[in-house]
C-alpha cells in the first residue's frame, strides 16, 4: 500500500510537470494568460505529490516495510530510529527522492512569491523549474526507482552504511548540501526564463533571484563546513579536507556562486558583465548537476559514491541538453547583453570584483580539471592515475592567498575611482595588523611562504572589514548622535546585503586562519601503550587507563580510556573508540576530540591486542581547528543578514552611507 502511494505519486507528478511545462509557452504565445494559472497549479500539485511520496518513503523506513526495495537495501530493525529516518539520503535512490522534494519545494516557493508579476519572466522560469523537475522524476521512475517490490519480503535488512550511522552530523550535512545544491536551480530557471522571455536587459531576473542565490549559497557554505566537520569527527585521520572528488564536487559550484555574488553587484551598479553573470548562474547549476553525476553515478569511488548502473548517462544527457539550450539562448539574446557602463579607473571596486571573479573562475577550473583528469586519463590513455593533494595545494594556494588579499582591498575601494589619501587612511591599520600577524606566524614557526602570506592577508582583511563597520557606525554617531552600538545595529540593518557580505568575509578569514594554522603547526604521534603508560605530545600528557569492550543494540564498541594529565592530576578523560557493525567487515573509527580555543587534542584508537594488554593510539595536536567551525557559523550569519528582508521603514528613515565616499 505504502509502496503504491509513493510510487504512483511520482508517476502522476511526472505527468503533471510535463503538462505544466508545455502549457506555459502555449499560454504566453497565444495570449491566453489565464492558462498560466494551470502552470502554477502544476508547480504546487507537483510539490504536494512529491511530498506525499517522500513522506510515504520515510514512513516505510520508520515502519521497516521491507517489501520496498529501498527499505530492504538500507533498513534494519536494529538501527536507531534517527539513523533509520535519515537513511532517506543514505543511498542513491532515496537521495534522489529527497533531491526531487527539495526542488519541488523551491519551485512552489518561487512561484508563490512571484505569481502576481506581469511579463513573461515568471512563466518561463516556472517552466524551467518544471523541466528540471521532470528530469528528476524520470530518474525516479527509471534508473533510481526506490519503490520496486521485493518478494519474498525479507525479515530484516542490512542497515545503512556503517560510516553513515556513526555520527549525528549525517543528519545535518546532507540536507544542507541538497538545500544549497538544489537552490541554484532557482536563479538558473530565472536566467533561462529571462532569455526565453527576451527580458535579459532589465535585470529583473537578478533582482528576483539575488536573495534566492544567497539562500542557496548560505546553505552550500554551511554544508561544506559541516562536511569537513563530519570527515574530521568520523574518518579518524585527523584532517578535514583531502581534495577528494566528492569534496571538490561540492566546492566547485560554491566558487562560481561566490563569483556571481560579487559580479552581480557590478551589473546592478554599473550595467556591466550581463553576459558573464548569466553564464555564471547557468554554469553554477550545471556544475551542481555535474557534481551529482560524479557522486551518484559510481564513476569515482568514495564514501559518497553509491555504485550504480546506467544513471550516469541520464546525467550526461541532461547536462548536454542544458548546455546546448543555453548556448542557443545566449546567441539569440546577444544584442541585449552588451555593457551599458565601462570601467573608469584601474583602482576601483569594479576592478577588485573583476579580479575576484578572475581568480575564483581560474580556481574553479583548476579544481575541475584536477577532479576530472583521472576519468579523462583512464578513458583516453587507459592508465589509472590519481591527482592528489600536491597538485591541488600547489595550484590553488596562490589563488587562495590572492583572494584573501582582495577581500581586504575590495571593501576599502570605492566604486568608479579611488582617491589616494582616503584609501591610505582605510588601508593603513589593515597593513599594520597584517604585518604583525605575518610576523607572529614566523615567530610561531611558520616557514611555508603561503602560510605566512595567509596569516598576513588574514590580519589585513580582518582589520579592513571590521574597519568598515567602525567607520560606518562612527559616521552615524557624528551625524545622528546615536550611541555607537545603536549606530552599528542600524547601519547593518539599513544595508543588510553589504554588511552581511562583510560579516561573511570575517567568517572566511577565521576559516583561513584555522586552516593555515592547523596545516602548518599540526603535530602527531602514534604510540602503543600498556595500561598506566603515558604519551606526551605538544605539552599534553595522556595516560592509558584501560581498554574495554561494550555491546550496544546495533553494534559492538571497543574503546580506550585515556586520561589527560596535569602532573599527577587527571584533568579530563578522552575515550576514542572503534565501532563494529554486524554487517560490515571494517570497524568504524570513532575518534574523540577535546576542543579549546587554542586547538584540538585529537585521539584515535588505531589497534588493540585482543587480550587488552595494549592499544595503539594516534594523538594529534591540531591548533585552531575550532576556528574553522566557528568561522563557518559566522559565514552563515553573514548570509542570514544578507537574506533578511530590509524593513522599508528602517531603510527609508535613515541616511544611507554613500559607497562613493565611505
Amino acid at each position, binding site marked *: 500500500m505504502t509502496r503504491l502511494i509513493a510510487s504512483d505519486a511520482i508517476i502522476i507528478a511526472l505527468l503533471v510537470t510535463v503538462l505544466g511545462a508545455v502549457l506555459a509557452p502555449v499560454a504566453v504565445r497565444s495570449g491566453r494568460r489565464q492558462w498560466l494559472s494551470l502552470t502554477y497549479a502544476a508547480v504546487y500539485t507537483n510539490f504536494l505529490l512529491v511530498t506525499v511520496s517522500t513522506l510515504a518513503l520515510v514512513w516505510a523506513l520508520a515502519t521497516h516495510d521491507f517489501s520496498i526495495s529501498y527499505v530492504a537495501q538500507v533498513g534494519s530493525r536494529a538501527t536507531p530510529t534517527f539513523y533509520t529516518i535519515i537513511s532517506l539520503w543514505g543511498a542513491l535512490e532515496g537521495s534522489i527522492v529527497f533531491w526531487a522534494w527539495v526542488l519541488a519545494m523551491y519551485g512552489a516557493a518561487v512561484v508563490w512569491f512571484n505569481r502576481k508579476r506581469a511579463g513573461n519572466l515568471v512563466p518561463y522560469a516556472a517552466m524551467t523549474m518544471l523541466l528540471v523537475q521532470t528530469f528528476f522524476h524520470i530518474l525516479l521512475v527509471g534508473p533510481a526507482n526506490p519503490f520496486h517490490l521485493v518478494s519474498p519480503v525479507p525479515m530484516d535488512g*542490512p*542497515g545503512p*552504511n556503517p560510516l553513515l550511522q556513526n555520527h549525528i552530523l549525517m543528519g545535518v550535512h546532507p540536507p544542507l548540501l541538497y538545500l544549497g545544491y538544489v537552490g541554484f536551480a532557482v536563479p538558473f530557471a530565472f536566467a533561462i526564463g529571462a532569455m526565453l522571455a527576451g527580458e535579459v536587459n532589465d535585470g529583473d531576473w537578478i533582482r528576483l533571484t539575488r536573495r534566492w542565490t544567497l539562500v542557496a549559497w548560505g546553505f552550500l557554505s554551511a554544508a561544506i563546513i559541516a562536511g569537513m566537520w563530519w570527515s574530521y569527527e568520523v574518518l579518524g585521520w585527523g584532517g578535514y579536507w583531502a581534495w577528494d572528488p566528492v569534496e571538490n564536487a561540492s566546492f566547485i559550484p560554491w566558487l562560481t556562486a561566490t563569483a556571481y555574488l560579487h559580479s552581480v553587484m557590478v551589473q546592478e551598479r554599473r550595467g556591466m558583465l550581463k553576459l558573464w553573470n548569466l553564464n555564471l548562474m547557468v554554469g553554477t547549476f550545471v556544475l551542481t548537476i555535474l557534481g551529482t553525476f560524479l557522486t551518484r553515478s559510481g564513476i569515482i*569511488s568514495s*564514501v559518497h*559514491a*553509491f*555504485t550504480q548502473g546506467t544513471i550516469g548517462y541520464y546525467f550526461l544527457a541532461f547536462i548536454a541538453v542544458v548546455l546546448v539550450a543555453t548556448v542557443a539562448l545566449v546567441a539569440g539574446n546577444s544584442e541585449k547583453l552588451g555593457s551599458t557602463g565601462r570601467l573608469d579607473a584601474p583602482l576601483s571596486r569594479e576592478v577588485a570584483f573583476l579580479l575576484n571573479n578572475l581568480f575564483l573562475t*581560474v580556481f574553479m*577550473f*583548476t579544481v575541475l*580539471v*584536477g577532479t576530472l*583528469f583521472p576519468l579523462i*586519463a583512464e578513458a583516453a590513455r587507459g*592508465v*589509472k*592515475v*590519481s*591527482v*592528489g593533494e*600536491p*597538485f591541488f595545494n*600547489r*595550484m590553488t594556494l596562490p589563488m587562495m592567498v590572492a583572494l584573501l588579499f582582495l577581500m581586504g582591498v575590495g571593501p576599502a575601494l570605492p566604486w568608479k575611482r579611488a582617491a589616494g589619501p582616503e584609501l591610505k587612511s582605510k588601508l593603513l591599520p589593515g597593513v599594520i595588523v597584517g604585518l604583525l600577524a605575518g610576523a607572529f606566524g614566523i615567530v610561531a614557526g611558520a616557514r611555508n611562504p603561503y602560510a605566512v602570506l595567509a596569516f598576513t592577508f588574514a590580519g589585513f582583511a580582518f582589520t579592513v572589514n571590521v574597519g568598515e563597520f567602525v567607520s560606518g557606525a562612527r559616521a552615524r554617531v557624528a551625524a545622528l548622535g546615536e550611541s555607537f552600538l545603536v549606530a552599528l545595529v542600524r547601519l547593518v540593518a539599513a544595508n543588510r546585503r553589504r554588511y552581511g557580505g562583510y560579516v561573511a568575509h570575517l567568517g572566511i578569514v577565521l576559516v583561513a586562519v584555522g586552516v593555515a594554522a592547523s596545516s602548518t603547526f599540526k603535530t602527531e604521534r*602514534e*604510540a*602503543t601503550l600498556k*595500561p598506566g603508560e603515558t604519551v606526551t605530545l605538544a605539552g599534553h600528557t595522556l595516560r592509558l587507563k*584501560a*581498554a*574495554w*569492550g*561494550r*555491546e550496544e543494540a546495533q553494534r*559492538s*564498541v*571497543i574503546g580506550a580510556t585515556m586520561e589527560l594529565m596535569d602532573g599527577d592530576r587527571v584533568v579530563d578523560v578522552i575515550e576514542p573508540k*572503534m565501532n*563494529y557493525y*554486524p*554487517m*560490515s*567487515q*571494517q*570497524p568504524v573509527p570513532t575518534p574523540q576530540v577535546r576542543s579549546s580555543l587554542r586547538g584540538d587534542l585529537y585521539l584515535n584508537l*588505531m*589497534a*588493540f*591486542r*585482543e*587480550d*587488552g*594488554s*595494549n592499544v*595503539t593510539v*594516534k594523538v594529534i595536536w591540531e591548533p585552531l581547528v575550532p576556528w574553522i567551525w566557528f568561522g563557518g557559523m559566522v559565514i552563515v550569519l553573514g548570509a542570514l543578514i544578507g537574506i533578511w528582508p530590509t524593513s522599508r521603514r528602517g531603510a527609508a528613515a535613515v541616511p544611507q552611507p554613500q559607497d562613493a565616499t565611505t
Partner: protein
Amino acid sequence: MTSKKNRKWVAIGAVGIMVIAFGWLIYGGLDSNVVYFLTPKELAAKGEKGMDVPVRLGGQVKPGSVDWNDSTLVLRFAVTDGSSEIAVHSKGAPPQMFKDGMGVVVEGRYGRDGVFQSTSLMVKHSNEYKAPGKGEKPAEMYKSLMKGSGA
C-alpha cells in the same frame, strides 16, 4: 569604430594568452603531480623509471609476509598480484582488519633498495555490505577483550 574594433581584438588576445598560460600551468602541475596506480608487476616492469616517484601500489597482502612490531610501530609486508611481489615498509599501526590476502593500496615511493616506503596504507573495501567472512568475528574479539581487561 576602428578603435572599438581594436579594443575588442586586444581583449580577445589578452584572454587567449591567459587561457594558454593557465593551460600550460595546469599541464605542468598535473605532469609533475599525477600519481600512477600500478600493480606490482607493472611497477617492476617500469624499472628505473618507477623508482623514487610517487606511486600508488595496489594488490593483495602476501600471506605469511606480515610483520608488525607494535613497539617500534614498523609494519613490513609484501604486496603481490600473483606474478610479482614487492616488499613494503610502513610506519604506524595497520588498519584493524589488515590481514593476509586482503586487498590493499599503498601510496609512497619505490626505493632503489627494492623496498617500497609507504606513506599511507588503505585497505580496499567496497561500499557494498558484506557479512564478516571466515575468521572475522568482531563480536568474539570484543568478548576476549572484555575478559582480558577485566572490565
